């Protein structure tokens, strides 16, 4: 579904991604894990068109994404839940969700709203509240709900566990698993490696802009290399 | 080592400047109109260099420089007409008055981040104009006539040189570097122990002081002060000078001030066309070289000598060239 080939990204003089190659197959949950600064978010930003790679290829369902501006990538069915959630704090919960469906041509949002509210009842209670007044966990739910309003083919998630209490992290991850089971392909970037591996099918480990290890998530979860990459022992 | 070198430089430069001055006198004194243009060029140099201190070196955006010029002009004129105060003291009074006004305007606005300074300086210049128009004693809307014509090329020239010396000395010192740091990154500057607000105020007040000086020189040159001499459009003239000369380049300001003064005189008959051309030049420079023609670079003898070589090299990397600006936010 998504193919990334030999991707190179520079920020000023910094070589942030040094030839990353990976792929995501339809129906899978694929995770990119690695320490901060390894280039995980940069990879996602390149896929969504927010940063322009210097070289490489990104193809999504046969289409070359490098030629497509960011706002058009969304209408191809790629929804990105950004790091730090980035909800619109000045818009109400309902309006935030409507923004998620911005590119959809059909006017029939009610059903999808109902679906999102069913999954996140807290959001329905707070539908008239502005986003800025939500708690961290609620904001993350809103960010995911907002992305789901697109009915995406590929859901790209950047550190959904960031800044959340362990209990909430577990809740969010079980939701991600559910979303995948209902047919959405997921590319997940996570620092919380164990959590990510527990729901992923396949995983890539990034270290300073390179993929150093890859394999089925289950195998990686057992391997010592992950532990070492993270905890240094 | 640096010190001896710079000490040697001083007399050399002094002699060169004196010769230049004598040359100008010899060349143009037969024609009062040319003398006038030389005087204006010197006054505009004072204005441009002092505005560059605020906008180019400290990174603030003042567009009310003519307002300070107006304060200096009227205060100096009042001093010499009503109180018969000696010329140089009157000029000093005008400059000090402008500096005080700069302090009053600067303290509330420079604490704030962002573009408030632009609009505050503009508004302040307008208030000054309204106040002047309402003071009958200085002629109100009719203008202030009968100011003794004390200003001559000697004074404008000396003060222009003095302004350049003072401001370049300031910029090449620890307080001056603090201003540069504020321009580059206020948060980082504070983390280096620089009191950002203080240096913004210092630069702003110094700029206002020299603008006031320029105003005093101007009205004692023309023998008249008029509220329309210090409007927003006048401020724009100075802004164009520093944009053309390069924000943060003193030699650039001096060159551009002189050049633009002469060009403006030449185009006096085509006033509207001149303004149209100015505005287009301003926009084009910003679109292609946002930090001005020279950027923060200074003209040096070595640089000028090397120009042919540099031009040759300039042609090659045309791709991606031109936009050297930082990608600020």
């Amino acid at each position, binding site marked *: 579904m998504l193919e990334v080939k030999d991707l190179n990204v520079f920020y000023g003089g910094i070589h942030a991604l040094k030839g990353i190659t990976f792929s995501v197959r339809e129906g899978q949950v694929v995770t990119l894990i690695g320490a901060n600064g390894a280039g995980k978010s940069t990879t996602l930003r390149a896929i*969504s068109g*927010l940063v322009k790679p210097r070289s490489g290829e990104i193809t999504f369902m046969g289409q070359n994404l490098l030629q497509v*501006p960011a*706002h*058009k990538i*969304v*209408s191809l069915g790629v*929804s990105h839940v*950004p790091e730090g959630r*980035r909800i*619109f*704090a*000045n*818009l109400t919960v309902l*309006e935030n969700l409507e*923004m998620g469906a*911005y*590119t959809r041509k059909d006017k029939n949002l009610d059903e999808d709203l109902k679906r999102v509210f069913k999954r996140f009842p807290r959001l329905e209670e707070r539908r008239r509240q502005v986003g800025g007044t939500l708690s961290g966990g609620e904001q993350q739910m809103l960010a995911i709900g*907002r992305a789901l309003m*697109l009915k995406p083919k590929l859901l790209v998630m950047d550190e959904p566990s960031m800044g959340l209490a362990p209990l909430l992290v577990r809740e969010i991850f079980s939701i991600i698993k559910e979303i995948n089971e209902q047919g959405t392909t997921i590319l997940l970037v996570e620092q919380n490696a164990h959590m990510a591996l527990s729901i992923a099918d396949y995983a890539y480990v990034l270290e300073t802009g390179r993929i150093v290890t890859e394999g089925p998530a289950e195998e990686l979860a057992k391997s010592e290399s992950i532990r070492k990459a993270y905890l240094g022992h | 080592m640096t010190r001896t070198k710079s000490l040697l430089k001083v007399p050399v430069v002094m002699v060169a400047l004196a010769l230049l001055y004598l040359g100008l006198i010899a060349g143009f004194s037969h024609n009062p109109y040319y003398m006038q243009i030389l005087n204006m060029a010197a006054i505009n140099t004072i204005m441009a260099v002092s505005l560059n201190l605020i*906008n180019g070196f400290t*990174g603030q*955006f003042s567009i009310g420089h003519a307002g300070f010029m107006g304060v200096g002009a009227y205060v100096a004129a009042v001093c010499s007409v009503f109180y018969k105060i000696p010329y140089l003291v009157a000029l000093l009074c005008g400059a000090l008055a402008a500096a005080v006004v700069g302090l009053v*305007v600067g303290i*509330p606005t420079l604490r*704030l981040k*962002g*573009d*408030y300074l*632009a*609009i*505050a300086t503009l*508004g*302040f210049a*307008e*208030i000054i*104009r*309204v*106040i002047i128009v309402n003071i009958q004693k200085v002629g109100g809307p009719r203008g202030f006539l009968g100011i003794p014509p004390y200003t001559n090329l000697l004074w404008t020239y000396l003060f222009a040189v003095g302004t350049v010396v003072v401001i370049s000395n300031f910029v090449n010192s620890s307080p001056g570097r603090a201003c540069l740091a504020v321009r580059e990154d206020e*948060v980082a500057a504070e983390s280096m122990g620089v009191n950002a607000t203080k240096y913004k105020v210092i630069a702003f007040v110094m700029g206002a002081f020299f603008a006031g000086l320029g105003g005093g020189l101007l009205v004692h040159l023309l023998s008249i002060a008029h509220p329309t001499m210090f409007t927003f*459009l006048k401020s*724009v003239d100075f*802004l164009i000078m520093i*944009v053309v000369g390069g*924000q943060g380049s003193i030699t650039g300001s001096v060159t551009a001030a002189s050049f633009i003064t002469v060009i403006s005189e030449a185009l006096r008959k085509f006033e*509207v*066309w001149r303004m*149209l051309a100015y*505005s*287009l030049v*301003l*926009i084009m420079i*910003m679109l292609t070289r*946002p*930090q001005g023609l020279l950027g923060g670079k200074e003209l040096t003898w070595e640089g000028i000598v090397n120009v042919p070589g540099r031009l040759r090299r300039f042609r090659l990397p045309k791709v991606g060239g031109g936009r050297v*600006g*930082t*990608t*600020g*936010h």
Partner: protein
Amino acid sequence: MSSVLSTFLQQVINGLQLGSIYSLIALGYTMVYGIIRLINFAHGDIYMVGAYIGFFAAGFFGGSFFPTLLVAMAGASALGLTIERFAYRPLRYQPRIAALTTALGVSIFLENFVRQFVGPNYLPYPRIIKVTQIKVGDIQFSNIQLIVLAVAICLMLGLTFLVNKTKLGKAMRAVSFDKDAARLMGINVDHVISMTFLVGSSLAAAAGVLVGITYPRIDPYMGILPGLKAFVAAVLGGIGSIPGAAIGGMVMGMAETMVLGYMKSSYRDAIAFTILIIVLLVKPTGILGKPMSEKV
């Protein structure tokens, strides 16, 4: 009714009329600032150009008001779009000072362009609407004043609807809050910014036509002072806030009318900037503004 009171009420009506003009201009300032953090110095000149387009349109339409107004709004919108596209967009990732200088350049260009090609002198505005005086008790006002107020209120209500209820309006608010996040929603940020200029410019043009019919003369420099005052109004209301701009404009108009009514008329231009200095000293975020802090 005592004459003191009736004079005062008279001034209030005049203040509302002037305030309507300032509010309409201030809205454009505040919208543009809110979305790209740029003080669009050329905004006052778009108002001026709007008034000129109205002037010629009135001749063409034989003086009917609404076609004149609409044509002026459309023409100014096109101008606003052009300016944004060619002068501001290329500078979006450059230091702010570059964009400010460019805005200043555009402002001077427009003034001198109109001056060169239409003429430097005052033009008498066509009497599109016949003036009739209306008297209620001791208070007298003209139908023009009512029309100005009514048109301004309608436009502001329309804008409120646009911003709060339509997809475009929501996108505008989203873009002003977080451009990257907006891109991730599939919002074409450049397009939304263009639309913001379009809406802001059309409101300014409406103000231009309204001023034309009220004080029936226009000139190439008519935009400078009202533009500045409207900016002050936007700061007073809280820059970036749409209701703030409306309120700020009204307060500004009122303050100026009161100075005219009770003090020396030559001080009218100073009041705006006195208000500005006071706002900056007391509450820099304005009446409805929210503080913006920088992320470190």
